[in-house]
């Protein structure tokens, strides 16, 4: 009897420990709100789409708008991993594809789009001469993309819906692989027959003789679309508008810098990509590359992803998923929709 009393006392202690430890972070959060943070934690991945971040960092463009701002970088391997870091409260701002952002938004992560990053050619490559459309992929072929729910996976689903009648038609031959691994595998004609990827990996693949594009992102989506968006937490926007604005302005200035001065940008970016300056310049000025901060295709992605069952809800207006600076850049024309509003959707 005595022993069981001790047992229940221990259980009670355990329970109270759980509840007190849950109360502690809440108190810490409250304290953090009072003192404005001058640290901005930015999550990014690897590729040409993130070039504006590197330029802004190298040229101190964030600090230009908020002196003393400390930027902490977090390099992650996929939008899914960024979602997890955001939920864990380790990130204020993240740059990612529109689909993983929408998955997070659908599940209630409090964040919105703070800026577009770039429009770029994404594409599916193969080395097999007999594959010219999606229908030519057999059950033993494998198509690599970085992760389920990534923009590459969603674009492949869009193309599959167009060409094969079902968005999930190719899910059985899809395989998740990191960009560099999959690019190496494709160029060595090993394991995979297709790779849906983004710059610089598709540029590298296409530079090798014998590799050709099966379908590109614009064909799949139906029109131009934004590849990456910068996403900020509601908390940052509410509690630290200065840091938020410095980030948005830094991205805008860096994007303009790359478009206006590709030569200088290539010199800055080359070491971080492990490429020489000439190749970097070639990639930066590849047809279709555009560092543009007004996002395109936000609603097109969410409509498709809801129809295909990847997310449950869709935003009624862009303002549900984007901050006012972005909504204003798109505009809201009285009467019929303006051009930029129409470009948020896929063409009929």
């Amino acid at each position, binding site marked *: 009897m005595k022993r069981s009393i001790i047992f229940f006392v221990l259980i009670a202690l355990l329970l109270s420990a759980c509840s007190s430890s849950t109360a502690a972070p809440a108190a810490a959060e409250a304290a953090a709100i009072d003192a404005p943070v001058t640290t901005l934690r930015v999550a990014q991945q690897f590729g040409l789409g993130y070039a504006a971040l590197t330029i802004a960092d190298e040229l101190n463009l964030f600090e230009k708008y908020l002196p003393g701002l400390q930027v902490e970088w977090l390099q992650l391997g996929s939008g*899914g991993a960024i979602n997890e870091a955001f939920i864990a409260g380790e990130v204020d701002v993240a740059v990612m594809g529109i689909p993983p952002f929408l998955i997070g938004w*659908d*599940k209630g992560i409090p964040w919105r789009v703070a800026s577009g990053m770039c429009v770029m050619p994404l594409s599916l490559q193969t080395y097999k001469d007999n594959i010219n459309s999606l229908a030519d992929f057999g059950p033993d072929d494998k198509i690599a993309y970085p992760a*389920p729910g990534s923009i590459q996976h969603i674009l492949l689903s869009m193309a599959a819906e167009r060409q094969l009648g079902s968005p999930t038609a190719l*899910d*059985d*031959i899809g*395989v998740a692989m990191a960009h560099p691994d999959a690019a190496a595998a494709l160029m060595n004609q090993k394991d995979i027959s297709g790779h849906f990827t983004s710059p610089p990996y598709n540029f590298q693949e296409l530079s090798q003789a014998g590799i050709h594009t099966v379908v590109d992102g614009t064909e799949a989506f139906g029109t131009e679309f934004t590849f990456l968006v910068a996403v900020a937490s509601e908390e940052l926007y509410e509690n630290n508008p200065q840091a938020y604005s410095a980030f948005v302005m830094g991205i805008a200035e860096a994007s303009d810098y790359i478009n206006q001065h590709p030569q200088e940008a290539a010199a800055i970016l080359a070491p971080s990509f492990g490429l020489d300056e000439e190749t970097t310049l070639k990639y930066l000025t590849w047809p279709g590359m555009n560092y543009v901060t007004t996002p395109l295709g936000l609603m097109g992605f969410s409509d498709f992803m809801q129809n295909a069952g990847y997310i449950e809800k869709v935003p009624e207006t862009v303002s549900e998923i984007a901050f006012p600076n972005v909504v204003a850049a798109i505009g809201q024309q009285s009467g019929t929709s303006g051009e930029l509003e129409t470009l948020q959707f896929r063409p009929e």
Partner: protein
Amino acid sequence: MPILKKVTENKILRQAFFIAILLGVWQYIVSTGNYSELILPNLRSIWTALVDSISTGEMGERTAYSLYLIGKALAIGSGLALILTALAMLSPLFADFVKTITTIFNPLPGVALLPIALLWFGIGENSILLILVHSIIWPLILNATTGFRSVSRTQLEVGRNLGLRGLKLVSSVMVPSAFPYILTGFKISWSNSWRSLVAAEMIFGASGGQGGLGWLIYQKRFFLQTPYVFAALFVIILIGILVENVIFAQIEKWTIQRWGMIIQKEK
């Protein structure tokens, strides 16, 4: 307190009681509302996810594929282990060789072999099979050879006196008396391979058509469907418990317990 006494005396009720407490603690932490549903989903949504993934056939398909891979690997692994052990029994030189490679490879976690498996066999079933066979074969050889070596001389002599020779001697005397060791080997092999399988699928992400429970977790993770992740974890635990406490326990009952090699388990 007759009810309390009854509960504390019955093993199953006792375990059910502990599980109920754990679930209660879980639900209590959820109900404090300090954690988002994405981090710690409540039990009801995990249950809904489990029911949903079973009814759509997804969970069944993934589980079946995982078990199919393990079954295949167990067949290959135990076949290889049998051959190596038999050869080691016949030649002392070969026994040293088997002992050496077992010593080298046994401590190596299967998942650590993944990059090499990918280089050799590429992505797909064969790489995973290599890892599974690796995690099955060494503990099996280790236990089987220990078992055979522990067969008492007296028993062997008795067998010989009864006129048993060669294979007959092996099947009637040596295998039964080494069986407790062999069974332990299988238990270790099973749990090693079950763990390796789930881990391997999550690390390099098997392809959609050829993916088991590890792939299911990997996929649900990217769509932030945390309740489904927990549902898959639940199935993994359940299968682990079923195999260890039902299947192996039953084999034990039919064999070494019936042969009087171990005493009846405590109730």
